[in-house]
């Protein structure tokens, strides 16, 4: 789209007194290979191309999206937005700055045939491990996303983003017992992602985990101390406090952490960081979806809440600096403050000491997903891999353990933090859609948390 066209549309939007106008043009392709039943079962291709127009006046926001990019349609939509306001023009856009471009340089790309062979190799490696493996499903997906952002201040920036993710699920069955386990890795890079994975090691881990889960016993349902493993275990902080620190809910007083700035909200062992700049990380971008450079944001420092995640429009309500955190799933969503790569900073405690300190508890080696209500702080997580701790030792594997709690309690219950910080990737759903994020933490010990199992014991 030409610069002049963008300027024309933004100016049309501003004609009735709007004080903010923005366009977000996007072209995104997704290719997904599904290898299941010992064959390349499906290659899915998805291509979207459209524009999101955002107009604001003070704290009110008006948004339109379309994939009909004809000038007449865009001017009609701009009119539809401006008709919500009845004032006179306050500002107009003369020219856009020189285009600033950001992109990831691909070192090389596998061909589709090479990828099919690679997926077959992974499938065969897994299947030959054990006859109780009933099904293997491998998904490899790659997204190319080109965004072009312009606003009434003349900002004019584009970024070419690329993300690749491998997701393997292995299904085990032994008579009536069934279990499934997964491996996942995603990076902001091309198919060279596959070269960063030690497949023999990961397959061995999947086999052990699958067999442990297949014969796992019901988890004890009660309040107990819990050790949460490093990596994706950090989802507990993503859910327990990350969402509550997004300006989306903080600005309107809808978050359990609204008005708590500079207050002690967590154990002194807790320092939480959100960093959109980590090179190649799944949740990283060079610019956010308002065109600002992403940055490293310390949110909780030694237990004290020191910042929130802030976007342009919520800044108007909060009067705090934007943090490069505006994100959206695609052009059909208006952006708002979201997390990128959120993690708990590492500590100095030892995992062996954590286990020894517990008489009856749970070792949640890896967590599945979770969810939280930012208004109340109530959250829940599913455990993917969990073992009971009995008498200071790791004991039997347990199935379907859930961790349930409240933000303000759990943040204060972090008693020990180790030094094995790792990140794990996932998709995070919220107001502006589903976006790729990393969560992370070192192994931690939480003093008390309600654990729910499949049955009581």
């Amino acid at each position, binding site marked *: 789209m030409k610069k002049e066209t963008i300027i024309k549309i933004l100016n049309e939007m501003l004609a009735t007194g709007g004080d903010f106008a923005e366009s977000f043009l996007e072209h995104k392709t997704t290719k997904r290979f599904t290898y*299941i039943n010992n*064959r*390349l079962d*499906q*290659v*899915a*291709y*998805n*291509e*979207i191309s*459209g524009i999101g127009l955002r107009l604001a006046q003070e*704290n*009110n*926001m008006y*948004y*339109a*999206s379309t*994939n*009909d990019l004809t000038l007449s349609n865009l001017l009609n*939509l701009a009119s*539809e*937005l401006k008709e919500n306001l009845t004032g006179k023009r306050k500002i107009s856009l003369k020219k856009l700055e020189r285009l600033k471009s950001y992109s990831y340089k691909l070192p090389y790309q596998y061909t*589709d045939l090479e990828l*099919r062979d690679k997926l077959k190799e992974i499938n065969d490696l897994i299947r030959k491990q054990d006859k109780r493996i*009933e*099904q293997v*499903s491998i998904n490899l997906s790659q997204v190319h996303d080109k965004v072009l952002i312009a606003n009434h201040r003349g900002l004019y920036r584009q970024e070419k983003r690329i993300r690749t993710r491998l997701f393997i699920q292995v*299904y085990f*069955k032994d008579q009536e017992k*069934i279990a499934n386990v997964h491996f996942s890795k995603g990076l902001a890079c091309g198919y060279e992602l596959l070269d960063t994975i030690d497949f023999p090691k990961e397959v061995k881990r999947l086999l052990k985990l699958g067999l442990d889960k297949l014969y796992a016993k019901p988890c004890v*349902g*009660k309040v107990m101390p819990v050790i949460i493993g490093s990596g994706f275990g950090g989802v507990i902080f993503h859910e327990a406090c990350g969402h509550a620190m997004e300006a989306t809910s903080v600005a*309107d*007083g809808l978050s*359990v952490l609204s008005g708590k700035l500079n207050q002690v909200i967590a154990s002194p062992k807790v320092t939480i960081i959100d960093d959109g700049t980590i090179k190649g990380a799944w949740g990283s971008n060079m610019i956010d979806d308002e065109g600002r450079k992403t940055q490293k944001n310390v949110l909780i420092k030694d237990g004290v809440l020191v910042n929130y995640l802030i976007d342009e429009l919520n800044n108007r309500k909060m009067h705090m600096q934007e943090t490069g955190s505006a994100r959206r799933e695609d052009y*059909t969503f208006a952006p708002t403050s979201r997390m990128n790569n959120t993690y708990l900073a590492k500590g100095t405690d030892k995992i062996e000491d954590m286990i020894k300190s517990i008489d009856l508890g749970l070792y949640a080696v890896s967590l*599945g*997903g*979770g*969810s939280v*209500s930012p*208004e*109340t*702080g*109530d*959250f*829940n*997580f*599913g455990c993917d891999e969990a073992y009971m701790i009995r008498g200071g030792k790791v004991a039997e594997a347990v199935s*379907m353990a*859930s961790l*349930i709690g*409240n933000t303000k309690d759990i943040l204060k219950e972090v008693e020990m933090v180790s030094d094995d910080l790792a990140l794990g990737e996932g998709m995070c759903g919220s107001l502006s859609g589903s976006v790729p994020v990393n969560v992370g933490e070192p192994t931690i010990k939480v003093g008390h948390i*309600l*654990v*729910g*199992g*499949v*049955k*009581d014991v």
Partner: protein
Amino acid sequence: MSEKLIALGKDASLDIEVNEGYKERTEITFLNDLETSFQVAKQTEYIIKAIKDDKCCEIYLESLKNPQAIIQNILDILAISENDNKNKLSELSLANHTLKEEHLNLKQIKNDFLSLNNLKKQYKYITNIESGYAHVGAKIKIDNSNSLKTQDYGFHEYMASVTIKKDDDYKVCYVTYYSKEYNFPKFLELVQEKINNLYLKIASVSCQTNKYKVILTNEAVVSLLGTFLPMFHSKNISLKQSLLSDDFQKQVFSKKLTIIEDPMNKEGIITKLFDIEGTKTSYKELVKEGVFKTKINNLEYALKNKEEATGNAGGVCNLYIKGGNKSFKELIATMQDGIVIDEIEGLHCGVNISSGDISLQASGYMLKDQKIVKGLNLIILSTNLKELFNNIIEIGNDYTASSLDIFAPSILFQNITIAGSEE
């Protein structure tokens, strides 16, 4: 556009079908006494299905402007695909039109939703009311040169989340409602009902881990049923990824449970005459008196398994659990002592759809002699879907309109484990 693509496909020995969808959505959101956003979305999308030499692929696009490139992309995909399941294009020409040309009275709608703020006078613990209204209109056209199908529908969507605070205790409830005609009074009634329930949960506590009689309210049942729907899919059954992989035509659930899909039911918010592959939909019993009777099939797996396609490519429409005779109050009277769960959270991580295991954050209230003795929060519904649906005491008749596609009444269960933090 689609004619040109179909013609170019013929030249490359490709049978092509174009599913063109157009959707318009107008949405307004509110916070307390303020309108916070107005959003309009207008989108066209295309699902292209292509078949060549027993191989089939589907791609999703938002433009057909470059048909040559689209054909080449399809040929590249088919060249590496190893799936040689048979597939076919749709045959009959069909039409189903229910979308009305509606002039939305946005002024009236805004006034209605802003009036929700008046509930603060009635309920003094309310701190915030977030709400939203949307009107959705959709048109679908499936063209493959031998048949043409058209279908459209529209509906009104209402949302609210209400936060209450007493002392340092925050509670929130979410209300969703859909209707064919604009019906704010019904939505207001539902919001008030939810706030009344929320008040019961002020200063709520946990319970002891134990087995209880449990009523899952209609909304909780809809959430669970929606999450476990993939268990009926023929594909998941064939690939051994379903809880019901070995259970076709077997008694898997209580005889009290019958699950029906009736896509053309006029009482539904929307009706669908055909699915996204163009297969005509039909009335069917997925589960009849506890027996797994019908698998959900798309064309690929119907042909593979030599079964009938069931018109469910893209999902279900008007699926419901057959109701009993008792109202919600009568279910409570039958239960006497037990737990009512009216909210469950974490469905994307607290269930395993292959094994049926359920471990979900829940809230509700505890009853003794039919009377509420305490609100419950941060409790865990710990069971398995087969265990749950085999422990049905009674199914109610109180359907909800909180979902577009799935409907269910409240259900009373026995012997269900609820985990809690009370000693």
